[in-house]
């Protein structure tokens, strides 16, 4: 069963099969979006998840800005590393 992540069309079997049509601007943007999905996921989901967790467990954090900054720092860098390495851990 597929997960939420997206498998890009295969590029490792070049030379076989019919030629693929040229990719338009929309297609290129979509490819870019998919290639950057771990980073986007880190900022879009992991960051607010960490921020909300910190707000719940650290006394007084709910009123402060730092949980969101910490969430963005951790989520953003985790996503960026996952983007580079192809793995979350």
């Amino acid at each position, binding site marked *: *069963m*597929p*997960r*939420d*992540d*997206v*498998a*890009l*069309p*295969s590029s490792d079997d070049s030379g076989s099969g019919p030629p693929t049509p040229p990719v338009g601007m929309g297609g290129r943007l*979509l490819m870019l*979006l998919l290639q950057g*999905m*771990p980073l*986007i*996921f880190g900022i*879009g*989901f992991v*960051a*607010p*998840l960490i*921020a*909300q*967790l910190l707000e*719940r467990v650290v006394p007084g954090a709910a009123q402060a800005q730092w949980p969101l900054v910490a969430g963005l720092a951790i989520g953003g860098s985790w996503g960026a590393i*996952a*983007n580079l390495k*192809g*793995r*979350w*851990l």
Partner: protein
Amino acid sequence: MSASATVRERDLSELSSQELLRLERSIADGFMGGLPWGSIAWAFVNLAVWLSLWPLTLSGVLPLWAAAPIATVTVILSYLPSHEAQHRIIAREGERLFWLNELVGHLSPVPLGLPYEAARLTHYEHHQHTNDLELDPDINTKSDSGWHMVVKDIGSQLQTVPKINIAYAKALERIGSDDARRAGAVLLVYALATNALLFGFAWAGYALEVAAIVWLPRIVGGVYIRFFLSWAPHHPGADLGRYRNTRGFRSRLGNILTMGMQYHIIHHLYPRMPLLRHPAAFRALRPILVARGCRLDGI
């Protein structure tokens, strides 16, 4: 006297392969047809429970520690009614209730985030090429043991693009039909929409809530589904052929917690037989399965 009653009394070794097949089919026929109301009710009740988790959890009525396991159970239960629809068990194209078949197919796996057409087409590939190292899209679950499968599956989920997704995309690419291209596009839209949903709720201040209802249950439920629906019935995944590519097995968890998969061999022999009739069909067909050299591990 029914065919299943006579099979116990006959010496099956006296029958030719064709006669055995005719006997097998005559017994299986007794379990085919009819509307699988149990699976239809299962689909809608399960979906209703999952949908009800949204207002209950987001409003704080249901605590996260309760929402997450309930959501995980609904995710696990969401696949099989759609699987019935994939095989047109509720109704075939052109039949009066085909709309119900498609409705169940599309709605049931919503908690799992699995689009129906991609699931249907790749699942047909699995049936056609069961245990084929190159062509079976579910072959990634092949492992030496149950623990090995779980560790391998978690490892795969930690990849930014898990192997199973690549296998499904490749299967759709290989099919190459307009339906497959459309299914691939819908798969992509589903994945992007799921992420958009997660991001939207997370930034609206409900990150833990969507993690409990969607994100975590899909990870945990996904492992459970792949374990019992893919790994266990096909282990060791070494044999090809009608009578050897799937096995019967006895699980300590029993029939309900394995979602009927102890009898999955019946499904591969008769894909259009309703799931809830598999145990009875298995008992009736067992002597023939033994005569055919099927692997029936403890059941």
